[in-house]
């Protein structure tokens, strides 16, 4: 009979017992209620996560098709098969869709929604109705964006710089309104997560035991609520410029176009941290599980997420070095951009140190994470290069920048997202996908990605501008290699979607904890039960302690029911005991 150590933060003692999960749960959240209407009106965070997964897959495919269109057009230096104006619309939509409809929601809306409450030991997020509203706002914004594509399109680039965006034809107002609506979706998710993390942690779950995935989502949500409103007002102002000729950003009306850029990038730079920080959280979870080792430097990783969130708000001017910004501002922004690389570097070292002398299991999630290490490091270091003003003057608006941000966003974030999907898929659907195919797809994605984007660094440093429909002959071989790579990349993603969908219908049923992790979400059955827990879980260790027996992570309050009753959660006065 092992005795449980009382948490240092526990202010009262409780009686606990072990709740061993069944391996496969027949009455789970997927079949608890049947029919499409039950899905469309669900308040279950897990189902909302799945709804988001479906929407985001469609968005990703749409954005991906646009990318392939761009790459095909760039096969030859002159026009290949698309008009110049259409080309401008393609890259604008590729960027807008991938960023606003895919990357910004991605991990928080899909994996965060699904896993966060479970990791906290909660039955749901704090505001389930807001959560559902958040998905509907996403769908509404997406519909408005699709409408704007069909109603004339936009060719301003995803950055909507004024005065072009405030004066050009096309459906700019509609598209920006679509983004405005999606912004609210993002804000509501942030509100929900911060409240849930603060107010709904299970007994014993003090901040020093919070999973790093939750820390990542916490930092992300802070950025979401502080930055997104500024984007909202900026978009509103562009709309007002177009409709009323307000003149804040248009020099012809007395305004300042650089002011637009300040407001836009005040959101859009922190937005890239919204996109990547949840991915960092996933990496921490996977590294620990697949090295079967306690994470190295827990507080360093946790606090570095917050540091990135904070410093990330102070660097936006590095997008504006050549816009006419004052030199003083440029120098300050450049220096702060160097600083923001440090907390990320700290994470990298901590992750690698976690793997050192660990018991490594090269399953698909870990393969994606290893790919992430290489690709994100390249992306991050090239970001530091771009932060150097003297270098940026030459590289701004070239393919070097394009390659940099694809390395961090695709090589970093999408790889992390894939890692998370492959990791948590058994918990979400109770099935295991074909692991051989998964590894092949991972390999294709990694190779395809490098073939697509490494040549772009070289092209860019030789002067190939971004967003250009035509180019000079010397760049043709680079472009062609890149295009070949993009199709390999596409095949890899299609494969992944295919075996995932196949697994939902024909996959082999899996066990509660196929990876042997200590984290809380693996201590409940697969697929998850409708209310996550039938007991009130009690956490007495952090989630990365592989020295402790699995039973220590399956503890819950000794009481009937799962803590819904107010009376039962009132003062309980017993010595803490663990029983097998």
């Amino acid at each position, binding site marked *: 009979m092992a005795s449980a150590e009382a948490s240092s933060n526990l202010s009262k003692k409780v009686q606990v017992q072990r709740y061993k999960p069944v391996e496969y749960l027949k009455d789970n959240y997927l079949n608890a209620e049947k029919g499409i209407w039950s899905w469309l009106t669900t308040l279950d965070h897990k189902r909302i996560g799945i709804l988001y997964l479906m929407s985001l897959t469609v968005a990703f495919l749409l954005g991906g098709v646009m990318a392939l269109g761009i790459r095909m057009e760039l096969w030859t230096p002159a026009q290949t098969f698309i008009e110049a104006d259409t080309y401008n619309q393609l890259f604008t939509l590729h960027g807008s869709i991938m960023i606003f409809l895919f990357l910004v929601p991605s991990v928080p809306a899909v994996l965060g929604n699904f896993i966060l*409450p479970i990791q906290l030991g*909660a*039955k*749901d*997020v*704090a*505001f*389930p109705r*807001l959560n559902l509203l958040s998905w509907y706002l996403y769908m509404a914004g997406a519909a408005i964006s699709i409408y704007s594509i069909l109603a004339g399109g936009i060719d301003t680039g995803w950055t909507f710089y004024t005065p072009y965006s405030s004066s050009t034809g096309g459906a700019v107002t509609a598209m920006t309104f679509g983004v405005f609506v999606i912004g609210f979706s993002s*804000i509501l998710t*942030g*509100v*929900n997560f*911060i*409240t849930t993390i*603060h*107010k*709904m942690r299970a007994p014993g779950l003090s901040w020093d035991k919070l999973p790093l995935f939750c820390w990542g989502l916490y930092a992300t949500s802070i950025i979401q*609520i*502080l*930055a*997104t*409103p*500024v984007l*909202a*007002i*900026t978009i*509103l*102002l562009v709309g*007002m*410029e177009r409709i*009323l*000729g*307000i*003149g*804040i950003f248009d020099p012809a*009306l*007395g*305004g*300042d176009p650089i*002011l637009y850029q300040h*407001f836009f990038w005040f959101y859009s730079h922190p937005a890239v941290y919204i996109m990547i920080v949840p991915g960092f959280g996933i990496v921490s979870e996977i590294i620990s599980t697949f090295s079967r080792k306690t994470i190295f430097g827990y507080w360093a990783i946790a606090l570095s997420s917050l540091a990135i969130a904070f410093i990330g708000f102070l660097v936006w001017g590095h997008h504006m070095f050549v816009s006419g910004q004052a030199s003083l501002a440029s120098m300050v922004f450049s220096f702060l951009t160097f600083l923001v690389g440090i907390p990320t570097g700290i994470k990298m070292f901590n992750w690698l140190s976690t793997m050192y002398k660990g018991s490594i299991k090269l399953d698909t999630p870990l393969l994606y994470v290893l790919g992430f290490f290489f690709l994100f490091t390249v992306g991050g270091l090239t970001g530091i290069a771009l932060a150097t003003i003297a270098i940026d003057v030459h590289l701004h608006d070239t393919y070097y920048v394009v390659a940099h941000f694809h390395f961090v966003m695709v090589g970093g974030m999408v790889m992390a997202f894939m890692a998370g999907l492959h990791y948590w898929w058994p918990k979400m659907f109770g099935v295991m996908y074909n692991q051989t195919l998964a590894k092949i797809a991972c390999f294709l994605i990694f190779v395809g990605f490098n073939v697509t984007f490494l040549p772009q660094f070289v092209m860019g440093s030789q002067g190939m501008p971004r967003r250009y429909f035509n180019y000079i002959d010397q760049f043709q071989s680079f472009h062609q290699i890149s295009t070949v790579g993009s199709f390999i990349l596409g095949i890899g993603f299609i494969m992944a979607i295919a075996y995932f969908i196949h697994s939902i219908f024909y996959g082999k049923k899996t066990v509660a904890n196929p990876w042997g992790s200590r984290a809380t979400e693996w201590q409940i059955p697969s697929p998850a039960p*409708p*209310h996550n827990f*039938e007991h009130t879980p009690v956490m007495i260790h952090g989630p990365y302690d592989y020295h402790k027996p699995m039973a220590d992570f399956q503890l819950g309050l000794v009481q009937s*029911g*799962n*803590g*819904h*009753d*107010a*009376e039962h*959660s009132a003062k309980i006065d017993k010595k803490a005991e663990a029983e097998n």
Partner: protein
Amino acid sequence: MANHSSAKSHASHVQHHFVDSDQQFDAAKFGMWIFLVTEILFFGGLFAAYIVYRAWYPELFTLASEELNTLWGGVNTLVLIGSSLTVAMAIKSAQQNQKKNIIINLGITIALAFVFMVIKYFEYTHKFEIGIFPGQFYAFEGIDHAKANIFFSLYYLMTGLHGIHVIIGIGLMIWLVKKAANNAYDSEYYTPLEITGLYWHLVDIIWIFLFPLFYLID
């Protein structure tokens, strides 16, 4: 095994994922404060634009501000402060189980909000009469500054956005009156009143800053 039938052991307003009424109230208030943070950053963008332009063209702001009526701006400020008082009273009435007073206090708040909008309406129409329109429709000759349209664009944007928030607040409070008339609120449960009150106080605070920034420039 759902515990949805456990209404007997706790109030029916407690949602299933909360442990008790206190946790739910706490979470709602906390969530509302986070939303208010987003509202502050939302308006804040406009305040930032204001500060940038005023720092560039201080003389414009001094000149153009004379077209705004300080008296009516001041009256509106007092009106909103009064409405903040009455909404706080409405919450107090709920906390003390005085159902009729909830409705009376909410009603006064709504009435004061209407007064605010009526005064705003007259301010706007007076400006329209002399040609002060927003943006490219600006047609007033009385200010000797090339960028006069920018001042009034900012004025219309900021007071307009604020006005929209007042109207939203009116709508929310009318809904609250309806629910209060159906006995939805008492000392056990008055969360919607509390969080709407917080929203309304923020609307008041924003005006507290808008008033000197537009009406009291010299």
